[in-house]
């Protein structure tokens, strides 16, 4: 016993709770924190909007009246979902790539973006959905009236309709989402799905184990008429077919299944999870029906057993749960349907009309949004008004299931054009319009209008005798074909003529370009679209063929690497990459590198477009091409080699030319140097020969001649020495030499010179024995050269030479430092060059080659001779390797 007000408040509280859920979900979505809102489970549960008041109440009624037929309503969708890889996946993929917002949008877009087709489909959807909405109103009204023991006011249904309209407007039209996705609604109906399931299962358990003693007891005394010998028959097939069609074509199902789908992979989960849901929710229908029939009085409406069973037993909580379950089931259907239908009406009728009327004077997109939203709200009101009207006109007394089936048969008229559209490129708009038109007409004439039982358009007499008395056109027996079941009759004729005319007209008509393009886009969507968010799909044949071709042309390993890389870049963890445009283009480019772009394009094109040449032939072509390519590559390699050789010859030529130039310069300088002393010798010799010279002078001149000859000889020796050193043919044996001995030898050689110039010398460092790896005599020669230079150029008042020895880990520095004027910065680079003399000081006997020779000598001993810059004086540093114990005397290179 329920008081009307208590019922009302419970309903309102529940509704408010749903609204909160929806609101919360929308907020999360707007903040981008979609998280589990996008989980496959929410998606799967939202699909349960398929189960409406018809499932909750009407199924039990149907079972009580006629056995197992009710199961077909759930088997059809299950089969469709088992085959999801086929149809549903293609639908979802198409809709995502083409940004489809409704089933009218899908058909319109496919058939050349036809506005007229969109309008037709929208009208059909609205009219077809009207009985269904009326059904929900009826089930709600019935449940309320049962609970308030018949004291519900007559206007209940009207108030329900208004309430639902407001609810739908609040839920679904606050904003317009670009994808037409309504996260709030989806979440709310996912929640309601759980409530429905729990409620029905609870009542089922109650009936089987609460009111009876288990399943065997339930079926112990089967009432008549529930089970028959024949389950499978035309009606079974028809019902299964209709329900399978409905799960796609119903506007609300298309909305949650396709439009609200955010990830193709969710389909994979739904493919088994949704049928599982359907199985669970329908499992207890038959037991409840049987129990109800046995326990409840004969006149009770079987549609309401779910409610009246717990009510009759006085379990208030269960009754309330049942009521809420039924409430959920009905309200979710109405809201989602209303939203889907209003979207279609606004997008395909209201906004286009408005745009046309304002003749393109649209100022801002804000105007369009406003019109869209306003028209949607109006449309929701309209849809509910129509549902209410149907309810009134049909008296609200028919069996719920049979009303629902009228809707199913109506929306099924969209199926031929839909299936044809996504699988047959030859389907045309003309065909679709014809098919849908004929199908719709037959449906309306044979099923929809007769449901008014003479109250609307078709009079009762027409129903019995046919229009104008033509018996052959009797609505319920077209062309004299007597099919007892009106549903089967309608479905047979409407689908037959629908599909037939669709095919015939499509074959006969020539579609315009846009339609053909759209046709290709839709039918070949898997070939031309990306695998969308993680799904590894592809025209396997194309990928495999390309792989085989690439192996032939690029070689197995290269091809394997390439394809693996492309696969990785597509986000696949393994296997062949999907054959999308980017991949095909990439493979073509790689192949072009080997066989030229024209051939690559031809070959790849044949594979990707499914050409006339078979893959085997292509591979044979590829083999021949590979041979040609190899030969030409060999030729190319040879020409490369020739080119390299020519280049080397040129370089050698350059080097020789440079060396020749150097040699010329050297020779000219040398001859200049030689000429100077020669001139002196000749002039003095001439004087001695030709002139009268005093004895003392003669003696002096002879001395000069003697000295100059020495100088000449020394110069020639030095030149020879230097050229020998520079030629790289030096073959010294570098031995271990004691540094102290070398210094001592150098000091004794220069003693005379030093004493003559009054130069002091000091040796620093080198307390212990130091052994260097060097040639003894040559190193002495270098040291003598450095000391001589220091004496010659270090002329100051108190000349002093320091020899400093510094030892590092594996080398030794031998520094010769003088305190003379030093070498000016600008001359420091020139110091080691041949024939350089700084200034003209006391240079008798010097040819300017000394330092050059010294540097070469030290270089040949794997050391360096450098001038270390200092503020005053000059520091020449010899850097030599220490003699290591592991060294053995080896020839210098």
């Amino acid at each position, binding site marked *: 016993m329920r008081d009307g007000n208590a019922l009302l408040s419970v309903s309102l509280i529940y509704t408010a709770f749903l609204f909160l859920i929806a609101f919360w979900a929308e907020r999360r979505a707007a903040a981008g924190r979609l998280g589990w809102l996008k989980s496959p489970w929410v998606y799967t549960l939202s699909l349960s909007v398929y189960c409406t008041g018809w499932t909750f109440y009407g199924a039990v009624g149907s079972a009580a009246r006629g056995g197992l037929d009710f199961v077909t309503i759930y088997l059809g969708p299950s089969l469709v979902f088992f085959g999801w890889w086929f149809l549903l996946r293609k639908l979802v993929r198409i809709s995502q790539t083409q940004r489809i917002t409704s089933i009218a949008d899908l058909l319109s877009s496919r058939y050349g973006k036809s506005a007229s087709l969109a309008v037709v489909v929208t009208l059909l959807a609205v009219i077809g959905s009207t009985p269904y909405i009326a059904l929900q109103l009826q089930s709600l009204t019935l449940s309320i009236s049962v609970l308030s023991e018949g004291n519900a006011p007559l206007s209940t249904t009207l108030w329900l309709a208004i309430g639902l309209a407001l609810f739908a407007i609040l839920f679904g039209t606050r904003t317009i989402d670009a994808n037409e996705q309504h996260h709030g609604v989806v979440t709310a109906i996912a929640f309601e799905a759980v409530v429905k399931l729990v409620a029905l299962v609870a009542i089922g358990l109650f009936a089987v184990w609460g009111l009876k003693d288990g399943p*065997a007891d339930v*079926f112990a005394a089967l009432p008549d008429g529930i089970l028959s010998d*024949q389950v*499978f028959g035309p009606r079974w097939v028809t019902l299964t077919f209709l329900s399978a069609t409905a799960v796609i074509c119903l506007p609300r199902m298309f909305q949650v299944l396709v439009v609200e789908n955010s990830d193709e992979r969710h389909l994979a989960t739904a493919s088994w999870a949704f049928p599982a849901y359907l199985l669970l929710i329908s499992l207890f229908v038959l037991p409840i029906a049987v129990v109800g029939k046995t326990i409840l009085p004969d006149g009770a409406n079987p549609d309401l057993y779910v409610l009246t069973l717990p009510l009759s037993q006085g379990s208030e909580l269960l009754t309330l749960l049942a009521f809420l379950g039924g409430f959920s089931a009905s309200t979710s259907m109405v809201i989602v349907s209303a939203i889907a239908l209003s979207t279609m009406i606004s997008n395909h009728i209201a906004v286009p009309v408005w745009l046309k009327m304002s003749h393109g004077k649209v100022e801002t997109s804000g105007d369009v949004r406003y019109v869209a939203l306003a028209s949607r709200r109006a449309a929701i009101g309209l849809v509910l008004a129509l549902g209410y009207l149907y309810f009134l006109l049909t008296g609200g007394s028919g069996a719920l299931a049979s009303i629902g089936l009228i809707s199913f048969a109506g929306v099924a008229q969209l199926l031929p054009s839909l299936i044809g559209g996504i699988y047959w490129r030859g389907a045309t708009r003309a065909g679709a319009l014809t098919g849908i038109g004929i199908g719709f007409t037959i449906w309306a004439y044979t099923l929809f209008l007769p449901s008014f039982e003479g109250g609307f358009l078709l009079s009762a007499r027409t129903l019995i005798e046919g229009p104008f008395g033509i018996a052959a056109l009797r609505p319920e027996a077209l062309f004299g074909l007597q099919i007892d079941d009106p549903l089967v009759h309608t479905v047979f004729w409407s689908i037959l003529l629908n599909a037939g005319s669709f095919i015939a007209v499509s074959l006969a008509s020539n579609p315009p370009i846009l339609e053909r393009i759209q046709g290709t886009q839709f039918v070949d969507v898997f070939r031309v679209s990306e695998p969308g968010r993680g799904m*590894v799909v592809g025209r396997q044949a194309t990928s495999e063929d390309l792989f085989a071709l690439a192996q032939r042309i690029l070689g197995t390993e290269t091809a394997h690497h390439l394809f*693996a890389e492309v696969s990785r870049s597509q986000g696949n963890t*393994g*296997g062949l990459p999907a054959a999308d445009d980017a991949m095909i283009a990439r493979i073509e480019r790689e192949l072009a590198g080997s066989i030229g772009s024209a051939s690559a394009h031809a070959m790849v094109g044949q594979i990707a477009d499914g050409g006339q040449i078979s893959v085997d032939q292509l591979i044979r072509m590829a083999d021949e091409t590979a041979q040609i390519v190899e030969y030409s590559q060999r030729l190319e390699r040879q020409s490369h080699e020739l080119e390299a050789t020519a280049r080397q010859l040129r370089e050698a030529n350059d080097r020789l030319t440079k060396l020749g130039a150097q040699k010329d310069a050297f020779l000219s300088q040398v001859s200049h140097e030689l000429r100077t002393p020669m001139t002196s010798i000749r002039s003095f010799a001439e004087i001695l020969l030709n002139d009268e010279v005093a004895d003392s002078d003669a003696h002096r001149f002879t001395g000069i001649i003697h000295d100059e000859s020495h100088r000449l000889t020394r110069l020639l020796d030095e030149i020879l020495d230097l050229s020998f050193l520079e030629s790289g043919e030096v073959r010294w044996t570098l031995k271990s030499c004691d540094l102290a001995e070398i210094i001592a030898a150098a000091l004794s050689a220069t003693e005379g010179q030093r004493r003559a110039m009054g130069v002091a010398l000091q040796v620093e460092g080198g307390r212990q024995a130091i052994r260097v790896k060097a040639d003894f005599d040559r190193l002495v020669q270098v040291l003598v050269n450095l000391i001589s230079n220091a004496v010659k150029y270090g002329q100051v008042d108190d000349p002093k030479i320091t020899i400093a020895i510094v030892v590092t880990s594996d080398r030794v520095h031998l520094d010769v430092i003088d305190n003379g004027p030093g070498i000016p910065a600008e001359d420091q680079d020139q110091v080691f060059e041949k024939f350089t003399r700084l200034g003209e000081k006391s240079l008798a006997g010097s040819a300017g080659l000394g330092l050059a020779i010294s540097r070469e000598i030290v270089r040949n001993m794997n050391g360096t001779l450098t001038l270390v810059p200092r503020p005053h004086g000059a520091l020449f540093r010899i850097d030599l390797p220490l003699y290591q114990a592991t060294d053995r005397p080896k020839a210098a290179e």
Partner: protein
Amino acid sequence: MNVNNDPSIADRALLRRRHNDTALALPAFGIVLLVSPILNIFAQIDTFFGIPAAYLYIFAAWALMIAAAYRVTKGVTGDDTD
């Protein structure tokens, strides 16, 4: 990537294709089980352990198909860890 150790790309593609074929066979099988005269065989048997045979058969076959769908789905969406 070692060409010798990994299952070749072509092999994986074959596996994928076989999974696809199974996925297509599934609904066909379902139709044969649930939308065919086989049902009438069970309709004629009255009850089975007290429960109507047809009812039992339909729901059992349905549950079987769901389990098969679950298995096939795992293969088809390419859990490459399989």
